[in-house]
């Protein structure tokens, strides 16, 4: 779990630094470039994050059920 958290943090920070470098170079926000196309990408990312978060909740519930049925 800890390794996973570290991995995710590294990924996020690397991504962030890339984004901020790019922003300095272009001196404009990533999301205003190329006809604001990245706003569309961002919206899709939000949709999938929400769906995966919900999937994770369902997974937790199934795990609980599995634990209970193993105990019996």
């Amino acid at each position: 779990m800890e390794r996973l958290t570290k991995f995710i943090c590294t990924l996020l920070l690397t991504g962030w630094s890339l984004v901020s470098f790019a922003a300095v170079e272009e001196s404009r926000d990533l999301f205003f470039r190329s006809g604001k196309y990245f706003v569309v990408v961002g919206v899709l990312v939000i949709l999938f994050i929400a769906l995966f978060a919900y999937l994770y909740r369902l997974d937790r519930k199934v795990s609980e059920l599995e634990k209970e049925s193993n105990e019996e």
Partner: protein
Amino acid sequence: MKWVKSYWWKLLGVSLVLFSIYAGTSTKVGPGIVRITPDHVESTSGFTLTVEGYNTSFDQLTEKDIRVWVKSMNRLVDGTVTEIIDANHLRLDFPAFGIATNDTLLRSASLIVEDQKHGLFLGSEMLRLRITPDARFTSDSLEHSNNPPEKLEQSYFSFPYRFVLYETIRNLNFHVPMWFTMMTLLLISFIFSIRYLNSNNAAFDIWANAFAKAGLLFGLMGIFTGMFWANYTWGTPWTKDPKLNGAAVAVLMYIAYQILRGSIDDEDKVARISAVYNIFAYPIFIVLIMVLPRIADFSLHPGAGDSVGFSNYDLNNHLRKVFYPAVLGWILTGSWIGQLTGRLDLITKEREWND
């Protein structure tokens, strides 16, 4: 065979969502006019305009393929393309013309462009035209252009161009279906609540809760995608828009439904009270999200308050061909999510009851 029977609608839902993501991200946004310089012109002296287009490929065309007009007060004036500067820039020449008026007037005018590749597109009301009455222009010159636009169709599939929105018009296919899905899932939840009160069957209460949870998920997805989109088009994630505030209250109402269920210990009471709450919440939700924004004086949301819907720009129905499948696809996918939640909750509860 059995597999097809129970999975066809889930498969259909996923296919439609995948189609909408593919078509929604890969379709080109059609041509548009971003800027015209100068934007103030004198009608009686002839003028040169430099036009900046969006997603135009003028460089693939010759001067003869592009025709231009200035339209003001129901009058079309023919112009000529003098130079194709690059893919997105044109230089145009317009002759002097006058319109019989009593006074010097400042009128708004539109620029119409038509070419063989992109068809007809216009910069609506982007010009200010100064009109001075001039004796040289008799009533003959008030007549329309001899060479009106042919209303050519575009030679490719594209989404309409909108100022400020640019490429983000695609988000219509991703943000709006969330609300349609939320409304459908909460309607299913509402029906289950009525059926629970009619039959006192505890399973119906679990189904009502499951679909309310799935509906809430889609409401939150709608809010967050909307805030993100608004941040880059309206300049702020939250404004005093009746649709935004209505949606926020609606989502809070269904969060309250979840809190209500969690705060009562007696199972029979939970089911009964939450069913009554749900039955009252749904009509209020519809009023908040559909009725109030529509009758409001002002709204930034297309199709609400004083703003016109996207349907007015979608003249060749290309946006619709992606939007409707997206709505149906997300409704089916949302129902799958609700069904999965309900089945899981039902197994969990049944185990509790059997213990």
